[in-house]
């Protein structure tokens, strides 16, 4: 019983920190220098405990609180442990960053922020630990509310308020769907423990309904299309560390729930379940990445990229479900491992990127890509660390982003002939789509890094930008190191996810991988496919070094620094020269043209006679215009009709009562 006690202790510790920070509401120094570092330490502890727990048998615990007759059941098994690792890692780095970040209070007192922040962490931990529907829902909603309060930290801005509202509303509707899902799963037994939900045998229709509700509910939290609309609003609104946590960790709790319900409680289902997830995942991935390439606001760009990555993860899960339905254990394990590895990968690089935007925001007060640039010179630390994240986000070797991509493509490729010819047609297409998505992600990342950190500063004030403080650097460093090291030792990742896949689909890659030693990742035999990041890195390094030596050896000329030739524009002031660079819109323009159908674009073009001509292009989400606004209008229309019930005349009210009585009497007589 040791692990779960430790984990509970850590969650309790976070709650304690929350309570303490309420006492020092406005003492920014204490909150920053003591409470957040302590939280980081707890996060590290959680990471360690969870790693150990992942390889040990499941443990259960009961709290004294809860419903009468239904105390809160907790359980840590391989699946929970894996996601605890994600939480621990994310919390550790982000808290370190926070220690340096919350210097000034953004609308809310720092103590209050830290309170909400640590409650958020504890809630996420307990969501993963929950072992009965009630506990799960309570923690799930606590998580939602605390994150909502964090998002609305700066509630004086109307945009922030609206973003928070949209977020909480969709989260709540998702939670309602989950409520119905659990209502079906418990099947009138009145026993909400997961163990009982597993034992209950539903007829196929009901279990499919439950599956649908689970996908809806968790999809709303994960940001699956078409429930993604809150994500690009909420992430930019929140303080950057919070965006980092939400995007890197909170979205993953939805993935956890999906796995828990679909694969653990329902134990898989017909093959088309997998197809549903596959379709949703691909749609989200494609839409997310396409939108992220055309964004002009750095945190929106990252938010959309989160949608994309969640989409990829869900695609992997869908594939795993399909294989599982046909009893192809090895392939299911491969696909699931890909998804899980990507969970971890995304947690690391997305935190890194969001924290990077936080540092930039603090240094420049600017979130609009059109006003940034050239920061690599003024804030080298942030720039170079974020570069690692960007490369990982682009799915490039030898970073961790590539490993999951590689595994995912492998699981598509090594598809032996499925018993369903339709699927056999489909799988290659899906693989193609995934490849396209990953390539586009590279485009988005180059845009993100290039426009922010490279080129010439587009505003004078950027020249005074200061580099991140030591705490912030520490946080960034944590994630950057993770991004690189996890990428270099994928075999360890496989070891980590192996227990989970065994638990869920009854098979794992560890044996096959161990057979080839820790240098080489060959999940299905070395002759089928292999990837050795370390050798790879050494190879590239050596070759680069070789190139350097050759150049040095053969070079006879001299090296000179000079101003760039800008087609004679050198006479212009620096600011206008900087204007010559590709703007964010410009960089996204080709994608906008190719994927015109995705967007609802409204342009504001200058007339020939304009004195101060300006060009603005507004890109909106067709789903928002086509699905959400009509719903709102419909509700309002119904409300208007209903309003006529209360039209003020007492005689009418008496008539209602009279008729009600008569109708009831008639019913009785009948």
């Amino acid at each position, binding site marked *: 019983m040791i692990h779960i006690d430790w984990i509970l202790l850590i969650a309790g510790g976070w709650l304690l920190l929350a309570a303490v920070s309420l006492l020092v509401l406005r003492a920014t120094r204490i909150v920053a220098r003591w409470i957040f570092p302590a939280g980081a330490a707890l996060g590290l502890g959680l990471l360690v405990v969870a790693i150990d727990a992942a390889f040990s048998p499941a443990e259960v615990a009961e709290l*004294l*609180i*809860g*419903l*009468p*007759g239904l105390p809160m059941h907790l359980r840590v098994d391989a699946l929970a442990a894996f996601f605890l690792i994600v939480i621990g890692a994310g919390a550790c780095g982000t808290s370190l960053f926070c220690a340096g970040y919350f210097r000034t209070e953004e609308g809310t007192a720092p103590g209050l922020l830290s309170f909400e922040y640590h409650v958020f962490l504890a809630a996420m931990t307990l969501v993963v630990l929950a072992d009965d*529907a*009630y506990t799960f*829902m*309570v923690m799930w*909603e*606590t998580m*939602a*509310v605390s994150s909502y309060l964090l998002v*609305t930290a700066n*509630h*004086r801005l*109307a945009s922030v*308020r609206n973003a*928070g*509202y949209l977020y*909480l*509303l969709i989260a*709540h*509707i998702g939670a*309602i*769907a989950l*409520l*119905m899902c*659990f*209502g*079906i799963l*418990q*099947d*009138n037994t*009145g026993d*909400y423990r997961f163990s009982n939900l597993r034992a209950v045998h539903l007829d196929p229709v009901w279990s499919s309904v439950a599956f649908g509700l689970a996908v809806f509910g968790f999809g709303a939290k994960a940001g699956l299309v078409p429930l993604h609309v809150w994500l690009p609003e909420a992430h930019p609104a929140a303080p950057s560390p919070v965006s980092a946590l939400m995007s890197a960790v909170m979205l993953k709790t939805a993935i956890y729930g999906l796995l828990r319900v679909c694969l653990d409680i329902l134990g898989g289902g017909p093959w088309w379940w997998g197809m549903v997830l596959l379709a949703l995942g691909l749609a989200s991935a494609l839409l997310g990445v396409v939108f992220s390439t055309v964004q002009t606001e750095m945190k929106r760009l990252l938010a959309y990229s989160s949608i994309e990555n969640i989409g990829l993860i869900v695609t992997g899960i869908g594939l795993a479900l399909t294989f599982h339905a046909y009893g192809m254990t090895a392939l299911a394990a491969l696909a699931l491992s890909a998804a899980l590895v990507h969970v971890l990968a995304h947690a690391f690089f997305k935190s890194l990127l969001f924290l990077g935007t936080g540092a930039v925001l603090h240094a420049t007060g600017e979130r609009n890509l059109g006003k940034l640039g050239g920061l690599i010179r003024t804030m080298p630390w942030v720039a170079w660390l974020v570069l690692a994240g960007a490369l990982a986000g682009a799915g490039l070797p030898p970073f961790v982003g590539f490993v999951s991509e590689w595994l995912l493509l492998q699981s598509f490729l090594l598809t032996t002939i499925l018993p369903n010819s339709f699927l056999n047609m489909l799988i290659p297409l899906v693989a193609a789509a995934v490849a396209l998505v990953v390539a586009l992600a590279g485009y988005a990342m180059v845009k993100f890094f290039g426009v922010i950190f490279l080129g010439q500063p587009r505003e004078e004030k950027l020249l005074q930008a200061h580099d991140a403080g030591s705490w912030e650097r520490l946080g960034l460093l944590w994630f950057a190191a993770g991004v690189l090291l996890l990428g270099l030792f994928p075999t360890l990742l496989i070891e980590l996810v192996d227990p989970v896949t065994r638990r869920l689909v009854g098979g794992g890659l560890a044996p096959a991988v161990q057979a080839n030693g820790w240098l080489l990742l060959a999940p299905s035999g070395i002759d089928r496919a292999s990837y050795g990041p370390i050798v790879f890195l050494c190879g590239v390094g050596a070759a680069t070094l070789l190139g350097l030596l050759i150049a040095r050896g053969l070079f006879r000329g001299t090296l000179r620094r000079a101003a760039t030739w800008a087609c004679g524009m050198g006479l212009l002031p620096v600011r206008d020269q900087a204007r010559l660079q590709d703007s964010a819109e410009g960089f996204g323009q080709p994608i906008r043209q190719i994927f015109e159908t995705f967007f609802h674009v409204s342009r504001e073009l200058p007339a020939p006679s304009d004195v101060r001509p300006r060009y603005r292009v507004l890109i909106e989400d067709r789903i928002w215009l086509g699905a959400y606004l009509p719903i709102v209008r419909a*509700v*309002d229309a*119904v*409300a*208007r009709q*209903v*309003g006529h*019930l*209360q039209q003020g005349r*007492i005689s009418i*009210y*008496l008539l*209602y*009562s009279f008729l*009600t*009585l008569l109708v*009831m*009497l008639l*019913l*009785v007589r009948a």
Partner: protein
Amino acid sequence: MTADPVVLLALLIAVPIFGGMALAFLGHSRRGPGINVAFSGLTLLVAAALTTEVVQGGPVLGLGERFFIDPLNAFLVALTALVGFTTALFSRPYMRIERERGKMTGPRMRLFHSMYQLFIAMMLVALTTNNLGVLWVAMEAATLTTVLLVSVYRTPASLEAAWKYFILCGVGIAQALFGTLLLYLAADRVIGGGEGALLWTHLAAVKAQLEPNILALAFVFLLVGYGTKVGLVPLHNWLPDAHAEGPTPISAVLSGLLLNVALYAILRCKVLADGAMTNGLPGRSMIGFGILSVVVAAFFLRRQRDAKRMFAYSSIEHMGLMTFAFGLGGPVANFAGLLHMTVHSLTKSAIFFAVGHAAQRAGSQMMDDIRGLLAAGPTLGWGLLLGSLSILGVPPFGVFTSEFLILTSAMRQLPWAAPVLLLALGVAFAAVFARVQSMVFGDSNLPPVRHPPALLPVFVHLGLVLMLGLYVPPFLAGWYRQAAALIGG
């Protein structure tokens, strides 16, 4: 303490009646509010003593079987006394400010305080009486007292509200009387005439022998009658007006207590009807009313601009939900319904405290005139925010607990109903939270007031609701269970 529970029972009713009489003379004095608080506190003490007695000694039946405490009304008595006390606490500074603003005068203060005490008394009578006729009388009396309280400002709007309240509830109650009459008629054949034929305990003992046809008719009249006071759609029309136009303390007790008492009356009758009838008509009709109320109220919420009015509709919604739960029946749903009664009255009264104070500061109940409560007064802002989240069914507050139980058990028993309810809940969430957020967040526009508000009750209530969300005390859970069994698990 080992006081005789029967004596306590008598005291419980005597104290507020006496208080009402005393305040009829002292109500206008400067110490009037204090005395009001004192009497409410005394009532609370008696109720607490009684509760402990019942916890230890079990149900009580006394005063010639006319009054009794059983699991079904024990917690309601405690709840009523508690909310009565906290509301008195809140109304102390609130009414002072109203008086300084000239909305209240000396006579009106007197009226307000004495009627307040009598109102509490009548509700306690209605809760503790064993005689269904007396139950009816008490309900009617409670209506009369509150009518005067609603119209206390004498503004056109408040008069209109009070008039509608009186006429609609009067008519409704009249129907309930007819139902009671039929009940008596049915009992008459089994137990013979006399007062015994209206004692609930006696009726419950012989409920199986009661003539089903008469009971069916009686239940319809009782449901429509008391349902009017519960505020079930389409009998609800008086409710938003009365809540919005009366003084805030009254809105709080109306929503928090009176509706509960009316629902309690329906429950008592349902027990008998269920006993006599086999076709489950009571349950089905309650389910129907419940769903209708929830859905209609949810859409009404979308249209509100007056803060108190909005939360009045939310009360309709929640009463509908409880009615649905009790109609559903079964141990889980009944348990949940009773729990929901408790948490709803605590939360809703807390919300009315917060909203009332906010409106008082803003000098308007229109939500567009209220901004930035968090900035204006953190306790006020957080009180309203947390209260609204709680009433909207967000954990870890207790409202979520009951909704969780109700909806999950409905999901398989009435698969068609649960989605409808959940849709309505979603609409309600969207509607209410949009408004609350705009009130709570942003920069404040509220001037300060002379007397510091008594917002402690808000946090006491929310604290209790939070506790009930995470931990239900064993004895309370025990009551709920027995009561659930009583109602027909």
